[in-house]
């Protein structure tokens, strides 16, 4: 680089117009130049950098320093990790280590942050506990509801006895007709005031109802014990069956308002 070129570069550099590629050769040429040339270049650039009288009289905005600090911190992080990873890393750091010590954070803010952080942890623990308690309560309530539904379905006073009392007797009905899905049973216990009839898939036909009857040996209806309608779901009915011979019981489908004898036997005792 000739002296002329060196001076031209110095001038362009002072005005911010030197191309990026020329900076290093210029700086190298400057370092290699004699002391008096270096001095001349320094003075020339210094002269071109007396800008104060030409600048507008505006005040530095008060809140700019934190933004400058943040920008430099971000650039540092980018240079450490590479620009592509920096945003991800910042997010990770922000997510994972919000309490990490940093020199860019004012002591007061750090102290406040620790306070808030502690409060957040405590609050988080409380919320977690409340959440777990609430969840457990929900589970319990759901279980209780299911139990209640079962109890309601099977008759609360008799459910325990049906499940756990070996003296409880079960009398099963069988459907008349091989393809019928009808299911029915009666549970009775000497300690109970009443017996319990369960039916499932025993749907009453339109205009008809289901009757629990006592049949004689010929299959005629001797007595009608109960009448109900069903859409085919689980039905339970508490009945006073004391003195009734279980083997004589049957379910009849009969027109409403008519005697059971006018109907059809749909289930008999097994």
């Amino acid at each position, binding site marked *: 680089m000739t002296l002329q070129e060196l001076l031209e570069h110095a001038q362009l550099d002072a005005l911010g117009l030197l191309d990026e*590629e020329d900076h290093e050769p210029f700086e190298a040429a400057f370092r290699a130049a004699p002391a008096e040339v270096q001095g001349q270049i*320094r003075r020339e650039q210094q002269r071109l950098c007396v800008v104060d009288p030409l600048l507008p009289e505006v005040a530095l905005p008060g809140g700019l320093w934190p933004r400058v600090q943040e920008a*430099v*911190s971000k650039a540092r992080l980018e240079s450490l990790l590479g620009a592509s990873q920096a945003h991800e890393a910042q997010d990770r750091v922000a997510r994972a280590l919000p309490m990490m010590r940093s020199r860019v954070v004012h002591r007061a803010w750090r102290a406040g942050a620790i306070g808030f952080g502690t409060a957040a942890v405590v609050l988080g623990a409380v919320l977690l506990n409340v959440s777990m308690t609430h969840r457990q309560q929900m589970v319990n309530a759901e279980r209780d509801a299911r139990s209640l539904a079962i109890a309601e379905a099977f008759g609360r006073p008799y459910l325990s006895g049906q499940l756990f009392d070996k003296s409880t007797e079960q009398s099963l009905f069988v459907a008349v007709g091989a393809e019928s899905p009808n299911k029915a049973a009666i549970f009775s216990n000497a300690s109970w005031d009443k017996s319990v009839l369960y039916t499932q898939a025993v749907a009453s036909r339109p205009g008809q109802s289901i009757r629990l009857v006592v049949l004689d040996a010929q299959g005629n209806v001797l007595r009608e014990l109960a009448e109900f309608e069903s859409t085919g779901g689980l039905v339970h009915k508490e009945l006073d069956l004391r003195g009734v011979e279980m083997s004589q019981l049957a379910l009849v489908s009969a027109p409403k308002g008519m005697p059971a004898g006018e109907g059809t036997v749909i289930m008999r005792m097994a």
Partner: protein
Amino acid sequence: MGDRQDQNERDRQMMQRIAAGDDAALKLLYERFGSLVYRMAFQAVPSKGEAEDAVQEIFVRLWRTAGRYDPARAALVTWVILISRRQLVDRMRRTRARIKPSALDEAAGLSVADREIPVGAGETEERMAAMMKKIESLPDLQKTVIKRAYLGGQTLRQIGEELNTPLGTIKSALSRALMRLRERTSEELPT
């Protein structure tokens, strides 16, 4: 002389601390030169918000170059101004890259109203108008190069390629143009 050397050494140490990531040293630099940098940015860009963004960019660049600072190369204030100018020129090049260079060549009567003028810079507008007149009076190559470099946001290499002119010639033309402008405005510029 001893005081200046002490100050140079303190400046060098401060820049080394900045390069090492010392925020306290960075704040010292900001306290000393933040106002100067902001005023330079305010003059160069069209809005207060952009000036603030530019200041952030300049301090990032000062941090990047802090490790290379040598008091023997330049006083710290000169160094800060050089770095600020580079960054502002880069920024203007980014934002003015949309301008067609051919339009600049044709714009013999380029008026101040056609340009982006900083907010609240009435005095600057007058100065720019006077400067534009002086630019128009330059020889063709110098005029073209200075318009493309300053107003068109082109690098000297781009100008050389587009004008099919050696880079050295472009640099010389720009340098001579600046010297001539300086001579013609010597009454306005501080010496």
